């Protein structure tokens, strides 16, 4: 089953990357490495790579970093009373469909009647074009994703912290460890595996990024918010170039596999 549904398509995708073919045509032409040459020499390539890495780094800082801090706070004595309420508040955005969120943020970012510019106008502050600004568009999309998915990582980390035996925490308390020391020396090391999972999910998600961009800017203005996942889709279904789409697929696969292996090696997962 795994072989049929996972590995064979990956192998086929690799084979197709050496052909020029379209979805509606029966014929295909072997073009060797020409698709790879076109992919790596395309002016969009560095833009996509930059955008995907930006998304990855910011997501690691905000979703994993900030999300973990929020999880620690939720598991601390500070939030005892309203723990469940906070947990639901943070997790709620992750339940909304990405397309709906994209549409909602399109209205929030709208330059003339949108929420953000309307607020800025009230305080007589300069307004921006947001999604229409080549320099800001990708950051606007990244911000939207952080709003949506930080709560998801928070929830995963809360589960990990709850699995830590209270004996360790109590022992540390008796030894005089404060909340920061307890978090750094007890909770985080014991939740290391879960943290790694969160990092891998975030990194892989960053390179598979598609719906958020499709639902807001479709890669624009110009190509300023173009990303690898959307490029793959557009090559396949807009330009009828399944070979180029396969190249993008191979590249995304390679980059996520390499980054995942690096992370596992660095953190030494599974050794304990």
């Amino acid at each position, binding site marked *: *089953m795994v072989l049929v549904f996972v590995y064979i398509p990956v192998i086929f995708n690799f084979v197709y990357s050496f052909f*020029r073919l379209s979805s509606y045509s029966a014929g295909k032409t072997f073009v060797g490495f020409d698709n790879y040459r076109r992919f790596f020499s395309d002016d969009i390539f560095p833009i996509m790579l930059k955008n995907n890495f930006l998304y990855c780094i910011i997501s690691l800082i905000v979703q994993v970093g900030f999300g973990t801090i929020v999880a620690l706070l939720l598991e601390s004595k500070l939030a005892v009373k309203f723990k469940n309420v906070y947990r639901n508040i943070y997790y709620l955005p992750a339940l909304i469909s990405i397309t709906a969120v994209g549409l909602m943020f399109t209205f929030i970012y709208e330059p003339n009647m949108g929420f953000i510019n309307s607020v800025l106008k009230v305080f007589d502050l300069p307004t921006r074009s947001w999604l229409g600004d080549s320099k800001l568009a990708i950051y606007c999309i990244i911000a939207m994703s952080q709003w949506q998915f930080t709560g998801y990582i928070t929830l995963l980390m809360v589960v990990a912290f709850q699995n830590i035996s209270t004996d360790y925490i109590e022992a540390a308390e008796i030894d005089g460890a404060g909340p920061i020391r307890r978090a750094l020396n007890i909770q985080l090391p014991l939740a290391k595996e879960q943290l790694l999972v969160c990092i891998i999910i975030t990194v892989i998600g960053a390179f598979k990024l598609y719906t958020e961009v499709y639902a807001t800017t*479709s890669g624009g203005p110009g190509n300023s918010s173009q990303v690898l996942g959307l490029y793959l889709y557009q090559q396949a279904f807009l330009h009828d170039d399944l070979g180029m789409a396969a190249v993008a697929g191979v590249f995304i696969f390679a980059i996520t596999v390499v980054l995942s292996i690096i992370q596992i090696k660095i953190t030494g997962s599974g050794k304990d």
Partner: protein
Amino acid sequence: MKKSYLRRALVFILAGTMALSLMGCGGEKESPSRDTSKEATSGEKTSNEETKKEATTGEQKVIKFMHRFPDEPYNSFIEGKLHEYEASHPDIKFKITSAQNQEYKEKIKVVVGGEDTPDIFFSWVGDFTYRFIRENLILDLTPYFEADPEWKDSLIESQMKQYTTEDGMIYGVPFRLDCKLFFYNADIFEQNDLKVPTTFDELIDVCEKLKAAGITPISFGNMEPWSASHYIGTLNQICVPDDVREKDYKPTSGEFTHPGYVEALEYYQKLLPYMTENPNGVKPDMGRTTFAMGNAGMYYAELIEIPYIKMENPDMKFGMFKFPEIVGAEGNQDILTGVPEGFVVSSKTKYPDECVEFLKWFLGKEVGTEQCQEIGWFNAAKGTTEGLTDQALLDGYNVIMESKAMGAWLDNALYSTVVDEYLTAVSDLTNGDITPKKVMARIQKKAVEAQTLVGAGSTK
């Protein structure tokens, strides 16, 4: 010891999973019967085998019909007509699917190549359909028109010409006529003592006066960059000679080196200071709403947008004028931007005669007359405006009838990679990130690449 247990457990789990999954596959294969009635009611696709069976036994003929108008009231009108045809032809049954504009463009390319191709489907004029013609996926309607001169005479020749290839193959029949015109707010023009501009300089003058009066001169949203392509398409027609433009628009010979292309972009740049602020952040339909709500003086609109404007503001008084003349430009000032949109028949259909017979009725005078009265869209049949009282619709219709030539939509006329570069580069130009010369340098590069890509990977 512990490791060995773990390994055994893993082997058991894997073996169990595989056995279960194989059982699952077997169950599906050996399923004694499939509930086909469920498929029919849920609107799912009928298998090819079923279609073949129906074709040979003379039972009900299922025609798969795909269109791109899921919005109301257009969807209800189309589906209503299809059901009406079913009622009068008991042997015909339609399976209808639809998708919105962009989604449709992507979906149709996938289904056309597969085994479950729609028999009749919507398709745009230009390279959008030529790509299917190059693969022999579209039925040649020429013999049907030759066999039925009455049908041919009942349709407007200038519009049918758009669905005819250079070598004379008729590949589609228009469903709705369209063109691009400047719509202007009659009240705003009257209050500011403005006249309809006839030249580009006069247009700039009108824009200046509106801007001075604190009114947005031209409403525009380019968040979906096809919107700007309508300006560029028009300006290319005006600034580039016909023969050069026609050669460049063909994917096999496109070069885009004529200086008129840069001039066209420069004229577009001249309009930008008078358009909605930050147009790249504004959706095209928001641009239309701004105009419909009386917050802008003009809006470069499609004729088919009249019903939308009337729906948004039924009391609005507006007039229309063609894109003004650019004195001294090298191209063709007479071309009206916009071509009809219509339906084509798949060459893979089991029922070509039935499909053509249906199109004769669906895209003919009888339905066309109801169509313009009910949803405000004209088809290409002659004499459909009888009884129509809406003056704005009649004015628009007359502009098309009087037009000497029509120009294809830029985003459907060009090869997909070239048009994509055009749209993204013009989007950058709109933001002021790039110069017109640099835009054209990018397009020239893509046009050269397109020459090698076109046809590669095809069966031809």
